[in-house]
C-alpha cells in the first residue's frame, strides 16, 4: 500500500514539475479550457439566477379573483362556500377593498394619490393558492370560477413565471448542448497535449519500459497531467465567471437602486463548483487516457 501511495505521489510530483517546467504551453491550454468552459458555465449561472425568480412561483400556481364592484356581502359568502367545495385548492384568502386600499397606501408609496381619491376604486378579491396542478386542470378551475356571476375577472398570477420557466428550460437545454460540445473540446485539447508530451518523452518511455516499468507506471503521470489540466481549466473558468459576476453586480447595484429592489447575481453554489471541478478532472483524465492508449503502444523498445 505504501509503495502504491509513494508511486502515486511520485507521479503527481512529476506532473506538477512538468507543469512548472513548461509554463507557457501549460498556461495556454489551461486558458483555452477555461474560456471554453466559461461560456456554458456563464449561461448556466445566469439561468440559475433567473430561476430563483421564477422557481418558487411556478411550483404552486396562484389565482386572483376580482369581484364585481356591485357584489354584496352575501355574494362574498357565496363564493367563500363554493371555493371551500372546489378541489385542487390549497388555501384561499379574502382581501376586501378596504384592506387592498390600505396595502396600496403602505406599499406603493402612493399615499398622496390614495388620499386624494374620492371613493375606493378597488374591487374585493380572493387570492387562491392551488395545489400542484397540470396546465389543463388550472384552465378548468379558471373556467369554472369565471362562470360565477359575481366574478369580474380571474387572473392567473403565475403565467409570467411559467413563461419564464419554459424559457429557462430552453436555455438549460442550450447550456447542456454547449457543455457537451465544449466537454468534447476539453477532451480533445488534453488528448493533443498528452500526445505532444508522449512524443517529447519518447526516450524516457522507451528506457522505462526496458528497465521494467509497467504500463500503469508509464501512464500514471500522463493521467495526472490530464486531470490537473482539467481542474486548472475549470478553475480558470470559475475565476472568469466570478470576475464577470463581480463586474455585473457593480453595475446592477445602481440599476437596482433605481427600481428600489435588491437584485444581484449569485455566484455558483459550492455544490455546482465542486461538480464542475470533479467533472472537468474526469474529462481531463479521459482525454489523457485515450491519448495514452493511442500513443503509448506505438513506443515499443527495439
Amino acid at each position: 500500500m505504501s509503495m502504491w501511495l509513494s508511486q502515486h505521489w511520485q507521479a503527481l510530483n512529476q506532473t506538477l514539475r512538468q507543469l512548472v517546467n513548461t509554463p507557457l504551453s501549460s498556461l495556454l491550454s489551461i486558458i483555452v479550457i477555461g474560456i471554453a468552459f466559461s461560456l456554458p458555465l456563464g449561461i448556466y449561472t445566469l439561468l440559475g439566477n433567473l430561476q430563483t425568480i421564477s422557481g418558487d412561483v411556478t411550483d404552486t400556481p396562484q389565482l386572483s379573483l376580482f369581484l364585481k364592484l356591485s357584489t354584496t356581502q352575501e355574494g362574498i359568502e357565496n363564493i367563500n362556500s363554493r371555493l371551500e367545495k372546489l378541489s385542487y385548492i390549497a388555501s384561499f384568502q379574502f382581501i376586501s377593498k378596504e384592506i387592498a386600499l390600505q396595502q396600496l397606501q403602505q406599499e406603493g408609496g402612493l399615499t398622496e394619490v390614495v388620499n386624494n381619491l374620492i371613493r375606493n376604486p378597488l374591487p374585493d378579491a380572493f387570492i387562491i393558492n392551488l395545489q400542484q396542478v397540470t396546465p389543463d386542470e388550472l384552465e378548468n378551475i379558471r373556467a369554472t370560477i369565471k362562470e360565477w356571476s359575481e366574478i369580474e375577472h380571474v387572473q392567473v398570477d403565475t403565467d409570467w413565471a411559467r413563461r419564464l420557466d419554459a424559457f429557462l428550460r430552453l436555455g438549460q437545454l442550450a447550456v447542456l448542448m454547449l457543455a457537451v460540445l465544449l466537454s468534447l473540446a476539453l477532451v480533445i485539447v488534453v488528448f493533443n497535449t498528452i500526445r505532444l508530451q508522449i512524443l517529447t518523452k519518447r526516450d524516457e518511455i522507451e528506457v522505462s519500459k526496458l528497465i521494467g516499468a509497467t504500463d500503469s507506471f508509464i501512464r500514471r503521470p500522463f493521467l495526472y497531467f490530464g486531470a490537473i489540466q482539467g481542474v486548472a481549466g475549470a478553475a480558470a473558468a470559475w475565476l472568469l465567471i466570478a470576475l464577470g459576476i463581480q463586474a455585473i453586480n457593480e453595475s446592477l447595484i445602481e440599476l437596482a437602486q433605481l427600481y428600489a429592489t435588491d437584485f444581484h447575481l449569485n455566484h455558483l453554489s459550492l455544490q455546482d463548483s465542486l461538480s464542475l471541478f470533479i467533472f472537468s478532472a474526469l474529462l481531463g483524465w479521459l482525454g489523457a487516457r485515450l491519448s495514452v492508449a493511442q500513443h503509448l503502444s506505438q513506443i515499443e523498445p527495439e
Partner: protein
Amino acid sequence: MISFKSVYKRYPDGYEALKNVAFTIHPGELVFVSGHSGAGKSTMLKLIAAIERPTSGHVMVSDQNINALKKNAIPFLRHSLGLIFQDQKILYDRTIFANVMLPLQIRGFQKKTAAGRVRAALDKVGLLEKENAYPITLSGGEKQRLCIARAVVHRPSILIADEPTANLDVDYAQSIMEVFRSFHQVGVTVVIATHDTTLLNDTRYRTLLLNQGKLTV
C-alpha cells in the same frame, strides 16, 4: 539460470538471426557472448530480456518461459535483470543521479532508501562526485559507467551487457571489466556480449561463440 533450447529467431524481413541455438548459463556464472557483428549477439540478449520473442524453441530466464510470457508480465521479468544497452539509452534531460534513480522509481522505492542506493551504485562505478552533473558532460567511459550504475542499482540477479567496452581504450575497458567481475564475485549472473579481444583473452570465463546465428562452441 538462463537456458536456450533449439532457439530460432527470424525477423519479419526474413533475416535469420539465430539458428538452432542451445546453451545453459548457470546462476552466478560470468559468460561472454562473442562473434562478428551481425552474428546474433544482440538478438540473443534481446531474447533474454524479452525485448524479442523466439520464432521457435524455448527460452527460459529465472524459471520463466519467455515464449509464453504475457505482455503485462514482462516488466516483472525485467525487474530481476540489469540491462546495459549498446546504444546506452541515457536520458540527457536529467542529472546523472536522476538517471540512476529511474529503475528504483519504477519499482516504487521510498525516496530515502532509493537515494542511498543510487549513491552506493554511483560510488561503485566512481561517479559519485558527479551525481548532480548532466550526462552530456561525461566522457565515453564515464557514460558507460553511468549505464552500469543504472543497471545494477536495483540489485538484479542477472546482469546483461551489450558491447559495454565498445569505443573505449584498453585501460577503460579493463576497469569496466573489473566492475563486472566484482558483481560476478557477489553471485550475480553476468552475460557480456563483446568482440573486444582484450576481454575475451581472460580464459577464466566461458565464451559462447556465435557465427552467422549458430553457436560454434
